[in-house]
């Protein structure tokens, strides 16, 4: 259940250009979070929370890992926190990826940029279920690449960069028909990427994780709507999502 929690910063390091990996200690989040859920981080001096995906969990040590890119005032402030300090967050927030895959099935994980982090925790969980995973990870350029080695431990991993400065040159979609067969896909990244992926893979069972600017982060303010094929005509990304079945929403 989502709660307001204090998380203790245990480690923080830059792992790629403008990209920070932060390890946080918290019992409630580490015990209950599933892949695809996020923390709604409440940063001092900021009116609204910052949604950041959970990139990994170490249940034993009560650790939660987040990876974030410094893009504006909130993430800049967050990057300036140091070990020993505490941050406030709501979490675990939203609904994660369904994990009910059969062992021996093959799944495709497609992550773009700062959409890569939730794919890691997901891949780790699926690997633990003996699901066979292939990962296609797209980044702008070589200096943005992170977590390649970690992905290689859990999945057959392909790196793509826009400019070809690392791995394959091009877009994640260029590899979709080159990685072999899979039963289901999971994707998170910029909207144009998700649109391209879902249209190329239409017909396949797929789960997408969406972003939108959020107010409350809990489902009360109706800021984060996405048109949907249900009775009310919409779903809330913060509380019905951020993960949706590819067909249930209109992107």
């Amino acid at each position, binding site marked *: 259940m989502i*709660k*307001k929690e204090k998380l203790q910063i245990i480690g923080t390091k830059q792992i790629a250009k403008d990209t920070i990996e932060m390890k946080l200690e918290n019992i409630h989040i580490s015990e209950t979070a599933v892949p695809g859920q996020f923390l709604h981080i409440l940063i001092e001096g900021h009116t609204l929370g910052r949604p950041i995906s959970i990139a990994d969990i170490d249940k034993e040590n009560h650790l939660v890992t987040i990876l974030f890119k410094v893009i504006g005032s909130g993430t800049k402030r967050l990057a300036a926190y140091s070990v020993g300090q505490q941050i406030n967050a709501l979490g675990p927030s939203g609904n994660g990826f369904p994990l009910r895959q059969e062992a021996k099935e093959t799944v495709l994980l497609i992550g773009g940029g700062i959409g890569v982090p939730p794919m890691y925790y997901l891949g780790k969980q699926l690997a633990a279920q003996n699901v066979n995973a292939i990962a296609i990870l797209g980044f702008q350029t070589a200096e943005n690449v992170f977590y390649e080695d970690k992905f290689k431990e859990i999945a057959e991993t392909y790196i793509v960069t826009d400019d070809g400065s690392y791995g394959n040159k091009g877009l994640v979609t260029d590899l979709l028909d080159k990685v072999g067969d899979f039963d289901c896909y999971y994707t998170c990244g910029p909207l144009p990427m998700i649109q391209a992926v879902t249209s190329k893979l239409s017909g396949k069972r797929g789960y997408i994780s969406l972003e939108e600017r959020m107010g409350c982060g809990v489902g*009360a303010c109706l800021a984060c709507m996405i048109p949907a094929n249900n009775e009310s005509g919409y779903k809330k990304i913060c509380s019905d999502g951020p993960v949706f079945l590819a067909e249930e929403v209109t992107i």
Partner: protein
Amino acid sequence: MNELAVSLPGLKLKNPIMPASGCFGFGHEYSNYYDLSELGAVIMKAATGNARLGNPTPRVAETASGMLNAIGLQNPGVDKIIEYEVPFLANFDTSIIANIAGSTIEEYEMVAAAFNYTEDVHALELNISCPNVKEGGIQFGTDPVMAAKVTERVKRVSKLPVYVKLSPNVADIVEMAKAVEAAGADGLSMINTLTGMQIHLPSKRPLIANKTGGLSGPAIKPIAIRMIYEVKQNVDLPIIGMGGICSAEDVLEFLLAGASAVAVGTANFGNPLVCKEIIDELPDVLSRYGFASVQEAMGKAVFV
């Protein structure tokens, strides 16, 4: 009597704290954080005649000590609200205020009348910051004649006390308050948001898809306090005050300026427990500044 209790037309509140309309949905989400029976009242998200889907996204943007929103009155329509949402809130020992909106006077009347048929709603908050479709989009909330007209017509059909929610986007807030007082309003609720815009530099477009949005949060508190002060000097109606409240000290500032109760909006987003925390801290803050009760602090600012 409880030191925090306040009485307003139609409302006997155990404390003066309520979540503001649109910032608390219909209470489901925040009921995970604390028992809504702790609240003086809950003001529901705006109700319109039919379901509305609201504006395209992005609908919110952060600003310095505030935020913009252009949700666009998304709601399931008054009938569904009465069928599904009011019963949920009626489970709690708190008062329920329905925020009503419309594009025509007839829609306002229809929505107001619908709430006559539930025992569980205790007052209406009349949201007049909506453009009147028939009169070519002039806001009810910035024209005293139109504000008076919609107030009078809603009063005529409703059996509930009506709190008119004033828009701050006017040159003379006292004129607006006097107009709705003369039209029969039982109370005022103020302030709604100020119209603002933020331009997103990378895309060169307004960040809010609707272009403009309503500015709320601590940034607007001085404007809210000034308007409540001005209205209180000139109009006799009780005021539900709001605009940037984050703490029990803020609540006391609103009480001193002339509010009889307050609503907390944007602050819920930064801290889902804020209403409860304010209620818990209010007795201490009152006594720190020499007041034995909320009642005693009301309107006690010295303006001479």
